[in-house]
């Protein structure tokens, strides 16, 4: 019975190929758009999440406060109030995974005939853990390098490319401000940060080397900022409170006096970015869904025309014994076949389109099986939903009226 109905639906669809094709096109475009938009949206989301992960997770940054010098107020981070000892004390707080004191600066690098200016980060080995930064080659410096302020360096990918070209830099010696530094390792590529900086254009050296030998400090042992990583996202509020307490104690601030430092939660910013990407992904999906709806209405429109055109045929079928539900099933099957085939073509075009976008623009795309399954389910549902009313209309005809219809 159903096999016969399927065959008949197929014949009916073949009878007016152009119309069937145009009806199907509505579904093709709808499903294709949904797949493509979801692929792009989820790709963007994944890219944002990757950038966030590259920054490190559960992070605080502690900056020293501002200072006033002869009526000039310097910006935040200018007061020399944070020290290496502060960083060490924070590192010993409960729920703190690591704390990395940082003294950044900029200097000219020279290797052979090449030179390159870049940001140089003086810090401790825990910086790599806090930033979740792996080494692509070589090995990191250690606490003993910190103690003895050795001239060693870890190079970012961009620096390696500009100074060494294809040469392997590990074990080589380059010059920073005319002093020789040995390259211990190369940092794994991280790509762009959320604000567009090239994170790989950097050199990491021991914090003590930076303070004593490269940049110098006005007060011995002070650092520009301290990066702190909490054990988990849940522990962050407690960690923030204990850092505040600890630093007020260590800096001997009286009750009611302003903090001479500020603690900033970097995760909050990252979460906002992630949420934005998610909202964008949802919005793209929603816009594409509208075209799916339009496709469904197209099917309903054509099915209504088809029912009217084939009224006489319906009458003949009823006269020779078709029940209302046979007629209903026949038209419903036709609508479902159109939407499911349209969906199949739409999936192929959507996936193809997404791959093309990826090829042409290098945009990250993510095609999940869920989005394809969802597109299919929606297409079948659209077929049933929009096919139901015309099919119902056909089935409810009186045999004699249908047969007399001219």
């Amino acid at each position, binding site marked *: 019975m159903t096999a016969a109905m399927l065959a008949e639906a197929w014949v009916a669809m073949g009878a007016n190929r152009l119309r069937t094709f145009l009806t199907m096109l509505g579904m093709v475009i709808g499903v294709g758009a949904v797949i493509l938009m979801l692929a792009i949206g989820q790709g963007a989301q994944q890219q944002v999440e990757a950038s966030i992960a590259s920054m490190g997770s559960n992070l605080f940054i502690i900056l020293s406060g501002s200072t006033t010098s002869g009526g000039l107020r310097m910006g935040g981070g200018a007061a020399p109030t944070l020290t290496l000892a502060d960083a060490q004390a924070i590192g010993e707080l409960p729920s703190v995974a690591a704390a990395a004191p940082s003294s950044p600066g900029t200097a000219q690098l020279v290797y052979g005939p090449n030179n390159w200016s870049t940001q140089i980060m003086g810090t401790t080995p825990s910086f790599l853990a806090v930033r979740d930064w792996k080494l692509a080659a070589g090995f990191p410096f250690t606490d003993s390098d910190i103690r003895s302020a050795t001239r060693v360096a870890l190079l970012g990918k961009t620096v390696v490319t500009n100074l060494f070209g294809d040469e392997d830099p590990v074990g080589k010696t380059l010059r920073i401000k005319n002093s020789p530094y040995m390259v211990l390792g190369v940092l794994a590529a991280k790509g762009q940060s959320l604000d567009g900086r090239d994170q790989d254009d950097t050199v990491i050296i021991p914090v003590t080397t930076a303070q004593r030998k490269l940049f110098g400090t006005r007060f011995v042992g002070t650092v520009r900022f301290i990066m702190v990583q909490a054990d988990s996202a849940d522990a962050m509020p407690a960690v923030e409170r204990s850092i505040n307490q600890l630093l007020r104690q260590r800096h001997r601030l009286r009750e009611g006096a302003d903090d001479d430092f500020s603690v900033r939660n970097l995760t909050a910013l990252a979460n906002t970015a992630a949420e934005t990407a998610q909202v964008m992904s949802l919005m793209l999906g929603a816009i594409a869904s509208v075209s799916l709806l339009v496709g469904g209405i197209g099917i309903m429109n054509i099915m209504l025309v088809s029912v009217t055109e084939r009224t006489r045929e319906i009458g003949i079928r009823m006269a020779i014994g078709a029940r*209302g539900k046979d007629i209903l099933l026949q038209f419903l099957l036709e609508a479902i076949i159109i939407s499911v085939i349209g969906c199949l073509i739409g999936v192929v075009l959507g996936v193809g389109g997404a791959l093309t976008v990826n090829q042409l623009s290098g945009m990250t795309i993510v095609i999940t099986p869920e989005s394809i399954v969802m597109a299919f389910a929606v297409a079948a549902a659209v077929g049933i939903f929009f096919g139901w009313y015309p099919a119902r209309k056909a089935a409810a005809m009186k045999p004699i009226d249908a047969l007399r219809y001219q």
Partner: protein
Amino acid sequence: MSGSPDAVIRIEQLYKEYLTDAGPVPVLKDVSVTVEPGEFVAVMGPSGSGKSTFMNILGCLDVATSGRYVLNGRDVGMLGSDELAHLRNQVIGFVFQGFNLLPRANLEDNVGLPLIYRGVARSERLDHAREMLAKVGLGAYNRSRPNQISGGQQQRVAIARALVNRPKLILADEPTGNLDTATSKEVMALFTELNERDGITIVLVTHESDIAANAHRLVRLTDGRVIYDGPIQHAAPEHLEATS
């Protein structure tokens, strides 16, 4: 009440009205007819006499306003639309003036169509259909489409379709109305053969006296009433006229 209990058709005091803007218009008034198995009945009457309405009610395509209609032992008035469809499928074979074949389907699919609604599998369906096409002399045209054969041949395909479910009753509404004299004779010979050899009961509407002459019994309708019901040989000449 006349007729045996196993009558194919028993109609008692049937009324039919159509509702129009001007109020109800009566079309059939107090019609009582009984058809026994194996009869060949011609229904005649002028246009507007209600003969088409009468046939539609006989065929369970339309329902009477009042009165009783028992088809093959079942009271049609008590049945729902699915059961009516079942009766049309199993008990009745229709032959229409306009053939009413499906233009897109080939002849064997057209003839096999009623079997779809009985749930017969495709191969068996086609076997039956080919058998019926051979029976009406069109075995060579199984795969042709209706527009590739002549009108007389199309009507024979329609008869094959009416026969495919082995019905007790064939209802033919002006079956020769669109055919020339020669093909009309062929088609009527086929009806006669079905009636005499297979014992199928036939009720045929026509307005041509020479077509009606193939039947054994005449029912004459005028203005919604039966004015003659009896052997065709005894009918008055005016009862065999197309208009009166």
